[in-house]
């Protein structure tokens, strides 16, 4: 294990973060395979630079309020399951940043990312340098075996393209997270994210064109494509994140489809409950003490 002591070779990043946040970055331990990355490809300097940007988005742009961090395991593996929306996955960034900021020692949420990301030049390399890897079963196994927090959006990447009229409606959940959590005996932490649905107002999804371009969706929003790429930038809405009590998955879910469907529904219901908690907090502009 090596500390991230070389993330700021040129001294450019340190002034951009408060001292307390910088010490968190330095406290994060990376299991170095020899050339400054872990076996998943996470780069120390990539993480440091990304955290500088993510911190400012988290603290000042989206002004994230969150509650329930005690439900996140401090050291062991867990699956974090959340709703997904917002055209671009800023909700994933905010969730990971929130966990990193509020856990002691800081923990990195590793997402199971859609494959199309890794086909795109720079984007796939960037995601990997932040420790985010393609969503395959073996990748999940590896992350859990090494005790990581694994983030999964069971609605899939298509949920990013939810229309405005579908706000806070959950799409059907895939079953993979339940099966994998049961196989490894790790808890599922339900998370509700509120705010991402309003960062973009999605009017339509150009599905035929998206299929032709091998993308999960192609959005038409109130600002995109009218303002060009800038139209994809999110509005500065306030985020509310709520973590729920961890759910242990019935191991029978590995053998019986009925049990698996029931467990998936239980997780979905738990996520829906956390969305409700976060929506309530937004209404009151704070979480109940």
């Amino acid at each position, binding site marked *: 294990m090596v500390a991230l002591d070389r993330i700021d070779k040129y001294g450019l990043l340190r002034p951009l973060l408060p001292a307390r946040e910088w010490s968190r970055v330095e406290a994060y331990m990376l299991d170095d*395979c*020899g*050339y*400054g*990355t872990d*076996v*998943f*490809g996470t*780069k120390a300097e990539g993480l440091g630079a990304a955290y500088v940007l993510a911190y400012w988005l988290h603290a000042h742009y989206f002004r994230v309020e969150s509650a329930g961090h005690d439900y996140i395991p401090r050291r062991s593996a867990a699956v974090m399951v959340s709703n997904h929306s917002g055209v671009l996955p800023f909700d994933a960034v905010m969730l990971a940043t929130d966990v990193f900021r509020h856990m002691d020692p800081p923990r990195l949420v590793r997402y199971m990312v859609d*494959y*199309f*990301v*890794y*086909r*795109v*030049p*720079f*984007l*796939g*390399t960037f995601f*990997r340098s932040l420790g985010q*890897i*393609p*969503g*395959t079963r*073996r*990748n999940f196994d*590896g992350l859990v075996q090494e005790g990581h927090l694994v983030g999964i959006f069971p609605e899939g990447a298509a949920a990013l393209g939810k229309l405005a009229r579908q706000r806070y409606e959950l799409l059907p959940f895939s079953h993979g997270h339940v099966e994998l959590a049961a196989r490894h005996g790790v808890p599922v932490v339900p998370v509700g994210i509120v705010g991402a649905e309003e960062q973009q107002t999605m009017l339509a999804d150009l599905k035929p064109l998206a299929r032709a371009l091998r993308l999960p969706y192609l959005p038409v929003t109130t600002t995109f494509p009218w303002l060009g790429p800038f139209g994809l930038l999110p509005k500065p809405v306030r985020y509310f994140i709520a973590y729920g009590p961890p759910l242990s998955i019935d191991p029978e879910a590995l053998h019986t489809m009925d049990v698996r469907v029931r467990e998936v529904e239980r997780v979905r219901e738990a996520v829906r409950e956390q969305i409700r908690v976060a929506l309530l907090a937004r209404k009151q502009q704070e979480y109940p003490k």
Partner: protein
Amino acid sequence: MNDSRQGVRDPGTPRPGQRRVLVTGARRVIALELIERLLDQSRVDLVVAVDPGACPARLLGHDPERLVFTSADLSRRRPVDNLFLLEPCRQKPLDTVVHLGFQTNPVRYGATAHEFNVNSTQHLLAAALRHGVEKFIFVSSDAVYKIGPRGDYKIREDGELNLDPGTHPMLRDTIDAEFLCRAKMDDPRCEVMVVRPSGVIGGGTISGFNLLLESHPPVLPVGFDPMINPTTKERLVSDLLLATFLRGKGIYNVAGVIAGPLSRFLEQQGVKAMRVPGPLLRPLNRIQRLLGQSHFHAGFHPKRLYYSLVLDDSRFDRVFRAHADVLEGAVGPDAPERR
């Protein structure tokens, strides 16, 4: 794959007695190194080195009682059979075959190379079984694995193979040769083993990564930086020695100690790469080869420069490297290490 099957006796335990080893492809850098390391071991009685060409100068000074070089066309059955009937082998029958005699140059690939690659494996394996060889080791390649954007962070031996009909025919030959070996893996008399090494860096080998490193300059696609864990010539030879001296059969990955992005390996070697958009990669590589600036063939395994391929060799670690003390002189940087 499964060591618990019929015919495997305690994988990882030393094979008793002295070794008499046939090494094919004797002019390859890895083979030369392996032969020399074999001759350093007192438990090796005889090494028969085979290649279609002339004897390499590096092998000339060795004890002729322990090293025999012979030229043979391995694509034909009779010459292969004759290898096991050489005079020194009559008194000391060969008990191990290390098959490195694969034609691995994608540039001059043709029907002859195809016949050589597939037939040589078939004839060697059949002859080895006929002549009571106890261990047959086929050195394959990590290029047999299918890679792409949905890749695993580490690829185990049961990873998906690249059976795409559009792959380079040489790659198809490698997979065919592996299948020939797999078909005989349950033979109770002979331990058939397939070793899939990751690319070898350094030492003048003709592995893809080494050829890439030796290009002037290496040309890489912009926006991609795959994870790799290449091995070294010394480590691969140590692994092959362990495979020779220890029991065990099946398919094994062997890889280097360090996993990291390709760019870091280039930096480490002091090599500066030229980045170009993906569609320009192959035309530029072709021009480079025409100008003699590169021997790397971008069309052989095109996705390799885009997507990660990190081999998981923990199985080989567990069965073989854990017993590295079986080798004489297995200390220092060449000793198989484990991270």
